[in-house]
């Protein structure tokens, strides 16, 4: 184990490198989660559409994502998308979005189905269409209910972004392993890398609980 003092020194001297790597990790996470939210909502709506073909499509997507390792998915996106001249950053981002989208779809579906049946009936009885009631009445309530499990998924997404290292994205984990083996000081770099992840997860947790409180005004 490195001494505390050594750890502290490397932490300070590597600040600049980690700053850039953290920025990349954040970009990977935020962009992939952002896209994953749309993918998730889309497939959640397919799953509750009561149209057999659409449900099957959604189930197939979720089956593929859940049934294969994330690292395999990222590699497939990487080799598939480099043919399209896509950067490794975008291959990783889309791979992560594709992956998180399936879990977010299940979170949204559960939240939507947990909203009382009477809400849809009340909307319909006022002459609102199914789509309008879904958009104005059901989804806002479902989103609020989905927030705690979504927060959890955001954290998983943040940590999983470290797998982008394997296709060359120079984010936090890649920086730590590369610098660690070059300096024969892997342990120090890995511990610093872990500290950065802890800080990021902590901040993300604060953000999610802030949003939960904001959305709880009607309680």
């Amino acid at each position, binding site marked *: 184990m490195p001494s505390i003092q050594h750890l502290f020194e490397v932490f300070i001297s590597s600040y600049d490198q980690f700053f850039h790597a953290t920025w990349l990790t954040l970009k990977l996470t935020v962009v992939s989660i952002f896209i994953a939210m749309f993918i998730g909502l889309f497939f959640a709506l397919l799953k509750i559409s009561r149209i057999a073909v659409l449900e099957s499509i959604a189930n197939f997507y979720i089956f593929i994502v859940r049934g294969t390792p994330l690292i395999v998915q990222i590699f497939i996106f990487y080799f598939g998308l480099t043919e399209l001249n896509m950067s490794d950053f975008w291959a990783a981002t889309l791979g992560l979005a594709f992956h998180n989208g399936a879990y977010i779809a299940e979170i949204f579906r559960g939240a939507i189905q947990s909203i*009382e049946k*009477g*809400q849809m*009936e*009340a909307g*319909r*009885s*006022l*002459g*609102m*269409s199914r789509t*309008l009631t879904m958009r*104005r*009445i059901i989804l*806002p*309530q479902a989103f*609020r209910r989905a927030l705690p499990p979504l927060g959890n998924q955001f954290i998983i997404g943040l940590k999983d972004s470290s797998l982008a290292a394997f296709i060359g994205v120079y984010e936090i984990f890649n920086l730590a392993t590369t610098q660690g083996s070059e300096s024969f000081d892997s342990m120090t770099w890995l511990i610093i890398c872990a500290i950065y992840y802890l800080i990021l997860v902590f901040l993300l947790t604060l953000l999610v609980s802030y949003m939960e409180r904001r959305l709880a*005004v*009607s*309680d």
Partner: protein
Amino acid sequence: MSAKEMIRIEKLNKSFGDLHVLKDIDMTVNESDVVVLIGASGSGKSTLLRCINFLEIKDHGKVIIEGEEIDPSTHNLNDVRQNVGMVFQHFNLFPHKTVLENVIEAPVHVKKMSRKQAVEEAKVLLEKVGLADKADEYPSRLSGGQKQRVAIARSLAMQPDIMLFDEPTSALDPELVGEVLATMKELANEGMTMVVVTHEMGFAREVADWVVYMHDGYIVETGKPNELFDNPKEERTQEFLSTIL
């Protein structure tokens, strides 16, 4: 002189799977009539009510609203429902919206009324149900009786020609029943056409023009309140009334 026919139901049948809930229902409701449906639970009265605004779709028979036979496969039911308001047992207010937002939701987003006008009209309606001071509260802060009065205001905001009430006081604490019934009575006095499923026999006797007794999916007897309550013709009606009065 014949009053305008608001609802006519002919030979209506409805099943849920093997369960035959409505059997050859015939019923007519004229303008400004208050019709109260009574009967034991499971007799089909709520289902009949829900067939009138197409929350349930009949299997056979006709549902004629304001002279027009409504075919769910060709009619735009959203348009039909704008004219047929419904108040639910469990209120079904939108919990993420304030009282005012609940009331203006459909006028703004369905009727495309301007927000300003919708708010003005909503305030008048909230005044009418005695809740003007609660406009900016969320439903979670209201009592059951207040919630139900907001739900009534929300339905009225669409200016329906017909109002359906599905056991509007059944989920309320006894001391809150009166305020909701008073609001309904006021509405009846203003000439609203109303179909009400309720166990409040006092309300039926006082406010109803017609009382309909249902049993096992059939309409057993229809009559003026004093006839039906004091001199029921059918044995089944007598039995039912003896259990509840």
